[in-house]
């Protein structure tokens, strides 16, 4: 498939990985069970992560970012997810779904107004695409923006929006031309918390990613000047498809990290747990389960890296991103499930990390396009080319 997988990481990439690994082990893992149990978004942690640059990954220094390439970003997200999936999700959504599109599609003025605040973490970002009646079928967006002189007036709502209750900057999509269909009729807007008519509401209790915040957005005659429109009029659909390509590499990396975290715990536990007078690692059934986990993880890593390398090289990578996301998230379900099995009854308790990782992994087969949607994307790419 012409995919180039880097066999070795640069010294800088290793340093990034190792630094974030230490940080995650010392700061994120110890609170991961608690924030999951309490469904608490760890604001203070995000302040610390911001200081270290984790909220400014895709943009250059002049915007207070750190200008990481996609390979490095994937390493960072995977290391965070190894310790805490919820934290990784908040970081990924902020970086790839809000900061990146504003930097990529924004006017000079929009860049100047929003990018540095987001990249430095002074403000958290969110992305509102999904609606109660439009998820996979994003073309079915109902939120409308109607032109009124120099302004747009937005009405509608969004649901399942990550970071919603802590974000101050939002990228949202709305129909601007019903007759033009999705590709031409949908535009993106940058909204700010506190705008008249813009409501932010707490989301429902969730299965996993409970330490990540989500919520509903409502728009009741939200009036914004045309200068808040992000990208060309009618290009919203095309632009968020590009945004999701990058986002999917991030979710794939997140799934990879969750799987690796669960695998490492299972491996350690298999040495410690004795049954029938021996560590359970000496039982072939357990050892083979671990062998399968390790193999699946490496296969997923190769796909994630292939997508990231292509993106960094400026090559088309939609197919690779979808493959990485599909494979890594399904793999993470299997690996975290088996990690619970290795832990036996203890794995079923909320005192061990693996059941949380299993619940967290489930998001990866749904968010930023379900596994079914990834298959649609992949099949379109392979059938056309």
């Amino acid at each position, binding site marked *: 498939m012409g995919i180039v997988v880097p066999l070795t990481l640069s010294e800088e990439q290793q340093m990034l990985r190792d*630094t974030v690994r230490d940080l995650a082990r010392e700061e994120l893992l110890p609170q991961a069970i608690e924030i999951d149990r309490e469904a608490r978004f760890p604001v203070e942690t995000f302040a610390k992560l911001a200081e270290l*640059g984790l909220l400014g990954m895709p943009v250059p220094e002049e915007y207070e970012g750190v200008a990481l390439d996609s390979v490095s970003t994937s390493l960072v997200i995977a290391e965070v997810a190894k310790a805490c999936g919820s934290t990784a999700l908040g970081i990924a959504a902020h970086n790839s779904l809000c900061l990146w599109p504003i930097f990529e599609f924004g006017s000079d003025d929009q860049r100047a107004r929003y990018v540095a605040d987001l990249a430095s973490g002074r403000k958290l970002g969110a992305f509102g695409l999904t609606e109660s009646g439009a998820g996979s079928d994003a073309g079915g967006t109902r939120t409308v923006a109607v032109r009124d002189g120099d302004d747009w007036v937005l009405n509608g709502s969004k649901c399942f929006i990550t970071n919603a209750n802590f974000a101050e900057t939002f990228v949202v999509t709305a129909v601007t031309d019903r007759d033009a269909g999705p590709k031409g009729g949908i535009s993106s807007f940058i909204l700010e918390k506190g705008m008249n008519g813009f409501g932010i509401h707490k989301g429902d209790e969730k299965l996993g990613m409970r330490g990540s915040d989500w919520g509903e957005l409502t728009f009741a005659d939200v009036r914004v000047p045309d200068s808040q429109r992000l990208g060309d009029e009618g290009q919203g659909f095309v632009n968020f498809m590009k945004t999701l390509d990058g986002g999917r590499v991030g979710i794939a990396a997140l799934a990879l990290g969750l799987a690796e975290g669960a695998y490492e715990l299972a491996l350690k536990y298999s040495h410690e747990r004795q049954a029938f007078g021996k560590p359970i690692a000496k039982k072939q059934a357990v050892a083979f389960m671990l062998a399968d986990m390790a193999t699946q993880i490496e296969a997923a890593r190769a796909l994630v890296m292939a997508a990231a390398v292509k993106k960094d090289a400026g090559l088309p990578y939609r197919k690779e991103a979808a493959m990485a996301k599909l494979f890594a998230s399904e793999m993470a379900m299997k690996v975290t499930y088996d990690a619970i099995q290795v832990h036996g009854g203890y794995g079923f308790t909320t005192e061990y990390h693996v059941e949380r990782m299993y619940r967290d992994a489930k998001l990866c087969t749904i968010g930023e396009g379900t596994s079914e949607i990834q298959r649609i994307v992949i099949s379109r790419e392979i059938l056309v080319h």
Partner: protein
Amino acid sequence: MNIVVCIKRVPATDSRIKVGADGTSIDDSQLEWIISPYDEFAVEAALQMKEAAGEGEVTVMTMGPAESTKELRTCLAMGCDKAVLLTDPDSGTRDAHTTAHALAKAIQGLSPDLVLCGKVAVDRDQGQVGSLLGGILDMPCITEIKALSITDGKATVERAGDSGTTETWTVSLPAVLTTTKGLNEPRYAGLKGIMAAKKKPIDEQEAQLGEAALTIKSLELPPPRREGRIIGEGPEAVTELVRLLREEAKIL
């Protein structure tokens, strides 16, 4: 304020150590490497002293294999200004004397106000390089400091004395200080620091080794610890315990 910090690349503390085929060195083919944890306190202290002084330069130095650039870069990412790598492909087998001489040679050329290093590298656990440096460089040396401040060309330090006491010392600079836990909380290298580190210089030069004071004849892992045994409970067990300590363990 011109500070030199000496660090060492050591196997990660959770490594499983194996003796190499030659029987005198460690098999390093499967190891992950880190900065020796006590050295991180030294790096943090250097950065804090420079920040407090509002001027100066922190040079981080190591003697080690070429791969040590990774550990040096991490220090540069934390905020050190430049790095010196004294290359020595066989650094894993050098004794403290050899190492201290090589470091001292390179340090002399930099005429620092302060030399900092960790109290001990956690690989061999010998803890000699710091004191040897003080001797070779003819500078006062205080080991295992847990507090440090600098005023008017003097360093005031605290270290743990006997039976829980704290000793406070004041030494004129330049001096060699070795650091221990409690001195500070080493900072993380931020992503920005890591990206900036690639633009900072690492000066690689061949280590000017001193003469070895000892050579390794053979290396063995400690015998596996034998399983514990419960010999009884309460005062009744004491007689039996003493008997076993005398007759079996032969330590009484």
